[in-house]
């Protein structure tokens, strides 16, 4: 078993870190570079920067933040939000990021996934899936930051993106995210069972039990945390220690 990666997800808008609920709302909670450095020093394994409103404004504009972050923070950095072209990816990687997360563009043009995974390598391409529950064991994929339904079944879509060359999947439960009430276990179980690429689970963590519960009941490979870290409800150290106590391997 791999060590589970504990990842910090940082949503950015206009140079502020924001945190919503159900991917809605722009409440400011801090400054991105400060938070990235803090989490790095506290032992986070990776950072994901999401441009929270790129979908609105047809652009990704995090390069200056990434540029600075990569000078201070020496762990893998993923950047997502509004990535539409090969040049967008090139710019982000040139700024020092390691991976990019793509959602809307992939839904609108699935062949984009194969195109960019050939150019940059699969390991660079994280497919971001925002899932909303429709009925028992059925979820629909949304795009434009949780605004528009795609009509795609999440399980089928996950299988498809793997076959097109995605290196990882970041799976966000729209229903759970921001609520701090726990992960959507069924969703994470269903997706991690049908793909053989790593799955990062995002959305819903409120306490350490939620995380242990997720890892003990699904085969996801990483957990992305936002609210619990940004609102300082939990520390990275205590999360990792509790996981180790629960016999879950993490980097200490």
């Amino acid at each position, binding site marked *: 078993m791999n060590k589970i*990666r504990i990842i910090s997800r940082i949503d950015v808008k206009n140079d502020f870190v924001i945190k919503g609920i159900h991917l809605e709302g722009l409440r400011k909670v801090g400054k991105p570079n400060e938070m990235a450095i803090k989490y790095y020093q506290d032992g986070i*394994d990776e950072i994901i920067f999401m441009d929270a409103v790129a979908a609105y404004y047809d652009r990704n504009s995090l390069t200056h933040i990434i540029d600075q972050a990569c000078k201070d923070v*020496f762990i893998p950095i993923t950047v997502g939000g509004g990535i539409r072209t090969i040049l967008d990816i090139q710019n982000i990687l040139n700024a020092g990021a390691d991976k990019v997360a793509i959602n809307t563009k992939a839904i609108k043009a699935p062949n984009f996934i194969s195109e960019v995974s050939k150019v940059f*390598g699969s390991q660079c391409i994280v497919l971001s899936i925002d899932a909303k529950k429709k009925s028992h064991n059925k979820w629909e994929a949304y795009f434009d930051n949780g605004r528009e339904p795609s009509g795609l079944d999440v399980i089928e879509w996950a299988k498809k993106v793997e076959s097109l060359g995605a290196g990882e999947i970041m799976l966000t439960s729209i229903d759970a995210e921001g609520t701090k009430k726990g992960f959507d276990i069924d969703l994470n179980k269903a997706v991690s069972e049908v793909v053989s690429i790593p799955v990062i689970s995002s959305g819903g963590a409120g306490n350490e039990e939620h995380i242990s519960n997720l890892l003990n009941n699904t085969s996801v490979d990483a957990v992305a945390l936002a609210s619990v870290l940004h609102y300082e409800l939990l520390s990275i150290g205590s999360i990792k220690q509790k996981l180790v106590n629960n016999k879950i391997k993490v980097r200490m």
Partner: protein
Amino acid sequence: MTHIAIIDYELGNVKSIINALEKVGANFVLTRNDSEILNSDGVILPGVGAFSHGVSKLKEYSLDKIIIQYAKQKKPLLGNCLGMQMLFTESEEFGTTQGLNLISGKIKKLKTLNSSFRKLPHVSWNEILEPTYLAWNNTIMEGLNSSSNMYFVHTYAAQPDNQEYVLSTTEYSNYKFCSSVKKENIYGCQFHPEKSATDGLLIMKNFVKICKEFQDG
């Protein structure tokens, strides 16, 4: 002043390497110029992506020949991730492709090494273990605890023909694979030291130190 050349062949996360070198305090240049490379005190070959694509890009700029020539000078060379893989004889990614053959051995998909692998690429922090026959003193691993965590993201791994060159092993899904190599002056890390927090930065720092020592004679 110790001067390090980072090979520029339009592949690889050079910014990360640059940031790391700046952090540990080293002079460097990003280049594909033959005399700059040959005259430097140390060379880093970065790389991310497919083996065949990497090799063809090196050849496009005649960098394959230059690197081999550089290596003959016995000056320190460090290959990271794809950079390490390309030091070897050949890879079976997307059909067989020839590498630089500076170290004899093949690059094989992690899956074929042991069919119980479930998830690929291997994306995770994982421990590198000091081998019994090759101490880490005076290598780029100096000062690290055996079982330091490094960041891995790869689907393929090296199988050196000569076990003596294995500088560290790592276990993934119940199977041990070679996670770094040392053949005289040539080093390779399958993981990304420039992305492996303070332990990784120590490796980068050690490499710079080795380059300096060589320069001082």
